[in-house]
């Protein structure tokens, strides 16, 4: 029998997350290169869009079901995935490097005696081995690395691997879970204000000290709204209490790689640049022509954010 790769999907509130399709697609690709069988696993109660995963080249889906497991439980999920990986003798495991994947993967890795390479931005197969590239020092350097363990576990950075459509047959196996170990369990999800999270957004509009005050951040929010973007912030404004920490981009905040990053009134401290310079396109708006942010920007306007932002928002709103 061919060796097996187990792709672990993530559902939230009964729906697979976008990163799960990326996981499935990457698993299918690695499977093709290494001649592996792909098995996909999801844990939860009802998952409305589970079948959609078969649009990305994976057929065999196992759904572990129990109504208390609609919420994440590190204890129960670790046990279920570990036992299932042993049952199917998985040689590779893969999941997304989301809050869920980051929390779960290392626990499963230890229980299976599998090495973990997390937050991979590139996975290449060379001489029958998976070579991973992952950013270190918040992206100030890239590391090429591989695993020497028998069982290998990888997590992939969300938004980096584009899922490739390839509709295949859908074979679902549902397994009911009796008495899951819920000694550690999420009892409640407190949704944050603001619509989008910087870690998941395709466009981010970030503001820095150049905005002068917390109130003036409405200019950032308005542009973000017009673009359907998430609001980000520099460390300086988070430390000043203008914005919550979850919006902080940079080495002690979040490392992001959106398609478009608009930096407004951000000079570009080395820690900030590390966290966002892997964005596909960067726009900088800053009064100081020597600001380091212009060094990483694709397009810049060397001017006053208070004059430029309202006009930019207006222009975006006029687009169809």
């Amino acid at each position, binding site marked *: 029998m061919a060796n097996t790769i187990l792709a672990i999907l993530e559902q939230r509130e009964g729906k697979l997350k976008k990163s799960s399709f990326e996981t499935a697609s990457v698993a299918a690709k690695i499977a093709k290169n290494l001649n592996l069988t792909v098995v996909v696993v999801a844990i939860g109660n009802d998952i409305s869009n589970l079948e959609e995963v078969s649009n990305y080249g994976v057929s065999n889906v196992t759904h572990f079901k129990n109504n208390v497991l609609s919420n994440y439980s*590190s204890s129960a999920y670790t046990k279920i995935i570990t036992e299932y990986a042993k049952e199917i003798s998985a040689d590779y495991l893969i999941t997304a490097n*989301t*809050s869920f994947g*980051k*929390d779960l993967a*290392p*626990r499963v*890795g*230890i229980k299976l005696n599998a*090495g*973990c390479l*997390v*937050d991979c931005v590139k996975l290449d197969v060379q001489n029958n081995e998976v*070579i991973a590239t992952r*950013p*270190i*020092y*918040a*992206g100030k*350097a890239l*590391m090429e*690395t*591989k*695993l020497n*363990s028998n069982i290998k576990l990888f997590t992939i950075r969300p938004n980096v691997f584009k899922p490739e459509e390839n509709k295949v047959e859908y074979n679902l196996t549902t397994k009911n879970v009796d008495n899951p170990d819920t000694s*550690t*369990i*999420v009892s*409640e*999800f*407190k949704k*944050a204000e603001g619509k*989008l*999270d910087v*870690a998941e957004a395709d*466009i981010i509009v970030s503001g820095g000290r150049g905005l002068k005050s917390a109130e003036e951040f409405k200019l950032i929010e308005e542009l973000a709204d017009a673009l359907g973007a998430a609001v980000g912030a520099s460390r300086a404004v988070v430390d000043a209490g203008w914005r*919550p*920490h979850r919006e902080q981009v940079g*080495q*002690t*905040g979040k*490392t992001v790689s959106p*398609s*478009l990053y608009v930096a407004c009134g951000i000079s570009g401290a*080395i*820690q900030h640049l590390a966290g966002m*310079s892997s964005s596909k*396109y960067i*726009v900088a708006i800053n009064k100081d022509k020597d600001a380091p942010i*212009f060094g990483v*920007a*694709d*397009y*810049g*306007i060397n*001017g*006053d954010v208070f004059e*430029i932002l309202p006009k*930019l928002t207006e222009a*975006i709103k006029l687009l169809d």
Partner: protein
Amino acid sequence: MKIAVCVSHVPDTATKINIAATGNEIDQTGVTYIINPYDEFAVEEALRTKEKEGGDTQVVVISVGNDANKETIRKALAMGVDSGILLKTENKMDSFGIAKALSEEIKSQGCELVFMGKQSVDFDNQIIPQMTSALLDYSCVSVVVEFKLEGQNITCEREIEGGKEVVSTKLPCIISAQKGLNEPRYASLKGIMAAKKKTIEEKPAVETENQTEIIGLKKPPAKAHGRILGTDSSAVPELVRLLREEAKVI
């Protein structure tokens, strides 16, 4: 109760990172080291828990590395931690090796509650707390921004995409600290003086074979220098056009 807090010694976040000639490590020239920023939140939460629990609660700081790590251990001692342990190694351990060494020491110290920073800002793995807990069969809540201990019961809030999860669990437990958990105290002069008198116990780290192998390090591709489109809002139409037609991102 005995509480452990684990700390790592990392390059200052303001440091420029260059690759050494060997190609598989960073160039140490001009690199200054600090306590891992997330570990300061871990130390603070350990101290607050000790103050709340009272009695004979003790906090021990543990670090894996070489003599240089003593500086970071001293920093924790100066903040108020009672004692320090350096698990010595000259080898470059991977996360698994560090988790293994920490778990052995936590076990032998009999610590039922452990705080760590959510990740070290060098390799950014964010996996050691969870790995250590799995090795010890402790519970673990990662990326915690609120922590409450009542008897054996723990209630935490952990930060995830788009909000916070409220998590309930029990001791023994490892908590990984996220920024926002607390405001770390500054070491007082008295604390710094007292830390000089505290002993740091040194013992060899339990060595395990690495599961990961570094092939090489490189700098990220340099960005082509961008275009300055103007100095005021008259550049907006051109910016919008480029984003739409050239970059195709809006």
